[in-house]
């Protein structure tokens, strides 16, 4: 029976650059929120977000593109994941069977904004200078292909906040079909003012902290960063003696087909996507030991997601720890579900569940075991990772210990 496994992980998050720093912060329950530094928020009602701090790329890269863009986060996480997988210096593989799938919400918007902000007259006079700095989204895969010597199919997943899980699903299909041996998957995003304004004007932003499942939750906080996973055919990983971190057991995709920004009130799409993922993974819902919730901290999402989880898991729902790591790092948009997939793999590795921080007041409509404020040691071998994007675009992935 064909299987897909994870052999490398990489992270850049608002609570730490690199796996080690990020993970320490997760289990300590550190809040990554800060006063917005990358642009002036004086005209807004909200002034905070979760920015990546102290990030430095410690190598000199020949290509200038990587300097100012989301490429640097993605590159960093990819390099960390490649090193862990042992494929960095591998010379025996057929690189035409190495594919790439990366999710992003905004791609190259941030450098574009930065230039235009510097000199607004550029819009009418010298606009071409700005556009010269903008690369099409698939330049991300080109950069990765170049630096890590991947020569197989490559795609960018533009699926808003479920982009990362879509990228993982894309790779899973091609690995299961034996079209690829290895896939570098994940997501990356920075915080563009455009998206900040968008969420702000939809009144979706929390003013100072993200409080998923709390009765007084006020919204999401935007975050930035990148998460990368190296996925492989199990047979391939075994043959080359790789250390296997987890099995990618299956996924589910669905669409609400309902509204541009609001989720379906009964969570129909979310139910379908979790159920389909369990079915594909051939896992009994009773065996799920942890759910990494989409848990954005908006009144709508958390209520609907709670209801959907109860519909899928029945009475057992109350016994499954279900935390939102967005309470610490914010909503990383196109990178969110990729980063959360990395977190799921780390939970399997360490047997510790990161908490939902900033939890103060229980909400009867969000009454699952959300692992409030303090990390918890558990025995867990099967994990559900939810992502439900605007537009009702849902994607769930499942990770388990290799048996």
């Amino acid at each position, binding site marked *: 029976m064909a299987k897909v496994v994870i052999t490398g992980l990489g992270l850049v998050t608002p609570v730490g650059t690199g796996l080690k720093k990020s993970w320490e912060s997760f289990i300590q329950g550190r809040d990554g929120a800060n006063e917005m530094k990358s642009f002036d928020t004086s*005209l807004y009602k909200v002034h905070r977000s979760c920015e990546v701090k102290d990030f430095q790329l410690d190598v000199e890269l020949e290509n200038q593109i990587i300097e100012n863009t989301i490429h640097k986060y993605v590159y960093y996480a990819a390099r960390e994941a490649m090193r862990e997988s042992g494929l960095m210096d591998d010379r025996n593989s057929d690189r035409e069977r190495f594919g790439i799938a990366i999710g992003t919400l905004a791609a190259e918007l941030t450098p574009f904004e930065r230039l235009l902000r510097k000199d607004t007259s550029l*819009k009418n006079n010298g606009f071409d200078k700005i556009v010269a700095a903008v690369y*099409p989204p*698939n330049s991300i895969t080109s950069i990765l292909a170049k630096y890590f010597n991947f020569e197989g199919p490559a795609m960018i997943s533009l699926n*808003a906040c479920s982009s990362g899980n879509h990228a993982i699903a894309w790779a899973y299909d091609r690995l299961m079909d034996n079209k690829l041996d290895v896939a570098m998957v994940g997501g990356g995003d920075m915080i563009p003012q*455009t998206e900040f304004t968008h969420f702000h004007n939809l009144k979706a932003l929390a003013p100072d902290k993200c409080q998923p499942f709390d009765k007084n939750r006020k919204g999401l906080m935007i975050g930035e960063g990148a998460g990368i996973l190296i996925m492989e055919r199990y047979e391939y990983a075994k043959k080359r003696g790789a250390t296997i971190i987890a099995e990618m057991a299956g996924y589910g995709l669905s669409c609400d087909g309902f509204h541009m920004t609001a989720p379906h009130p009964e969570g129909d799409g979310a139910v379908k996507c979790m159920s389909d993922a369990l079915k594909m993974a051939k896992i009994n819902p009773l065996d799920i030991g942890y759910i990494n919730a989409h848990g954005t901290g908006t009144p709508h999402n958390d209520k609907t997601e709670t209801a959907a989880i109860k519909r899928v898991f029945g009475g057992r729902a109350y016994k499954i720890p279900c935390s939102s790591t967005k309470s610490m790092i914010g909503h990383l948009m196109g990178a969110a579900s990729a980063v959360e997939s990395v977190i799921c793999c780390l939970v399997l590795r360490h047997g510790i569940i990161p908490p939902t921080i900033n939890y103060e007041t229980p909400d009867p409509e969000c009454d699952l075991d959300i692992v409030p404020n303090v990390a918890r040691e558990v025995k867990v071998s099967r994990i559900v990772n939810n992502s439900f994007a605007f537009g009702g675009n849902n994607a769930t992935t499942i990770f388990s210990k290799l048996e």
Partner: protein
Amino acid sequence: MKKRVVITGMGAVSPLGNTKEEFWNGLVGGKSGIAPMVSLDLSSYKSKLGGEIRDLQPEIHLGKKGLRYLNKGTLFLGSATKMALDDSKLPQDGSLEDRIGIVIGSSLGNFSETTDYFYEIIRGNPSELSPMLSYDVALNSSINYVSVIFKVKGPVRTVSAGFTSSLNAIEDASRMIQNGMAKVMIAGGVEQISIDLYLIFYLRKYLSGIKGGLEISAPFDIQRNGFIMAEGSYIIILEELQHALERGAVIYGEIKGFGNTYIGGKNYSTLERVSSVEKAMQEALRNAAIKKEDLDCMSANASGCKIQDPIEANAIQFLYGEDVKHIPISAIKSNVGESYGTAGAAQLVSTVMSINTGIIPHIINHAEKEPENNLNLVLGKPLQKKINHAIINNMDYEGNNMCMVVSRFA
């Protein structure tokens, strides 16, 4: 045993007209959809031609309500999707539930709408901008609209892979049907001309006429000097064979196989690039279990690019050797220009029309081949030929090569 995937509906919003019939009649009539651009002020730039969408009446397809909030790309995609669904005679009332999904290719998605929104932000008070304006600020906004309008509840995905985005999307959608994730998939691509995109191409010196001189969309021709950018949306309804048979659908063709190679990022030699394209064609043939001798025609990627056209021509010559004269080759970018992320879907619609009519459209704007080019280009007038199997080439400047084989349903 993998499920078979057939084509049961098509829709087109093209520079040649806003139905698949007008698109097809334009191609076989040797018409050009290229004209001086009216949607952009290009007075200070040398390349002024484009394949723009003209006179689209989206209200016919989507109703009047809420139309003013929809951006250009969404109107293209929504209209083409509606026509394709009408053509397929599938129900549109949501009764397909999660048995229908969408995968759309788009190189930049709604990037220009997103940047438009940013101009509004820095011009005034961002807090006062209407939330209605911000519906377009995700790169996949257009597909979200379409999923809501047509109540799609299966898998929904936007794929960006540069110029090959739409064939990547069609491959993805076919795979979803083969793996049993959906019975019906809406697949294809959408692109809209914007000043952002124009400048991205202009600054990279891709456009024809950029160094002065003739502005022309002339694939495989000695006078070619770049491509002419175009926009539009081409949608194909893919359906699992059994599902189509049970409802008595008209079947236009069958998706047989894909080949995808990638040599992005590196400074590969011309020869390596040629061999990568050839390999993509071979993989598509192998995947389709069809011999190259069985192909009846080829839809070329050729867009008039100085460097890419000969790479493709050489790859075809390598693949066929002496027999290259036996395969007639069309290049519809001579008529509609380079619509990048939806170009492959346009070629697929044209190729499926060829299968169903027995006509291969001819290449226009063609004066003379490169001397070393031995290809059997369809020139002067359309070629009548029964077509059982056809191959489509789609290439990206970043090194993604995508080929697919489509066949008569038998």
